[in-house]
């Protein structure tokens, strides 16, 4: 099984994502109120289209690393 990333690094990652969330909120606000013709739909459409498949790729990697086997291993250890 792969080595898990530390809590500190996860916190840093979370704050980066939170900052991205704020930036995206501002962008969507500005693009919507300025009645953007192409940039807004391109931005939203691309993000929505890619979000699921990219997460699914990371999910499959996690499955390969044994996220669903973890319980069985715990039980074997306790035996």
């Amino acid at each position: 099984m792969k080595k898990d990333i530390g809590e500190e690094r996860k916190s840093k990652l979370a704050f980066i994502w939170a900052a991205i969330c704020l930036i995206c909120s501002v962008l969507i606000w500005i693009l919507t109120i300025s009645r953007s013709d192409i940039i807004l739909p391109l931005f939203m459409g691309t993000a929505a289209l890619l979000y699921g498949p990219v997460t699914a790729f990371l999910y499959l990697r996690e499955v390969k690393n044994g996220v669903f086997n973890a319980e069985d291993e715990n039980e074997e250890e306790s035996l």
Partner: protein
Amino acid sequence: MAINFSEIWSAFDWIIISVYFVIIIAVGLAMRKRASKNMKSFFVASRRLTIPVLVGVGAASWYDSWTIVGLAECGTTMGICIIFIYIIPTAILRLPLAVWIGPLVRNKIPDWVLTMPDLMSYMYDRKTKFVMAIGMLPPFLYESALLTAGGSVIAYVTGMNMWLAFAILGIIIIFYTSLSGLWGLAITDMMQFVVMSVSAGVLCFGLVNHFGGFGSLFDQVGAVNPDFLTVTGGNGFMAVLGWVISALAMYANSQSYQRFGSSKSGGDIKVSYTCIMIFGLFFSTVMVFGGMAALVMFPDAAQEAPSEAFWAVVFTTLPVGLRGLFVAALLSAVMSTVSADYLICGAVVVHDIIKGFFKPDLSDKAEVWGTRVVIWVVGLLIIVATYFWSDGISKAYYYCGGFQVAAFIVPLMLGLFYKKKDSCCRFLELASYSSCLCCLGVCSGNSMRNSSQRSLHNIQCYSICYSRQAYL
């Protein structure tokens, strides 16, 4: 009807939907054994879920058919203002839940805390647990609104009887949820999340293709009603406040706390839930534009039944096959949220009420089986309750979300952050609860359109008030 959906529904669309249902049921069967071990395994997947898995289960349960059909209805009836008064505030206001409260709950709670009533028991006492458990039950009626949205779509596209569609969808959800618990949902939710994400992207590009960019869409919506292109949409302060308050509903959402409990660590919650907020921004905004397109493409249908006009847009702008995918996305959104709530409802009844107060010696196996039975009973009741919500979903969320905030957010937050659980704490809790409920009453008073919705609202309010009186 704006267009005859069943005429343009192709065999390829049928194949996509059928394959989707078969896979969901197969996952339920495959994960059955793993979920049957004990309540911790069934309800919180043994607290082993990591970042990508949490993104799937979190997003699929948060973004339901309200996010698709409800926000599209809002786009049709309110214009772009819903982006400014609900979608963006939702993303920003929920960030503290992701980076602060979720991890705090996960890191603070002992292993025996599985459900939200368990959490209340840990923070306060057993009486509070009982009040919370009873108070959590009436809001589950919202599931019938979600089921209505999903079943209506099946009925539109296939020409099937609407009540039969509600029953089929409801029974499939009951089946796989009762079998596989959260372990199964960790797989089905991820599949459903991917379908939702891809469908939103496809719809967005379909709209661009149809209108040749959003500029034309903005112009045509502005010609129908200039208020639809303003930040407040012509809504008053209280209406805007009502929307912002409902954005806080996730702070008191039982699914969120269940997902927090199922994570491997607080750090996983931080990363996954901030990612979910960003997804929500894009996904929700696309649906609003879909609703606005319905207003200009099918103006007559949009006035009579906004959701039907939205589906007409989907069927007009998307090619064969992708329509099936979009219907699958709506069903995914419904199924993932309803299944999560069935699971929680089963646990509240069996784990919190029956085992917690009447039969403390209930074995692990019996608890899991009892939860499965309750999921079936509640699921069948919810199918019957779809009768109450046959006229649209947007209002259902408006007051159910607000009600959750009023009833649960104050005791939860005070429990987490106010150290001394004394009479002062109880006074603060009651005072804040009452003011939230008053605010909710003022904001949503005119929004309930028929007597059945008002009756459901009364059932919810009375149950909370009675249980609180009993407690105090």
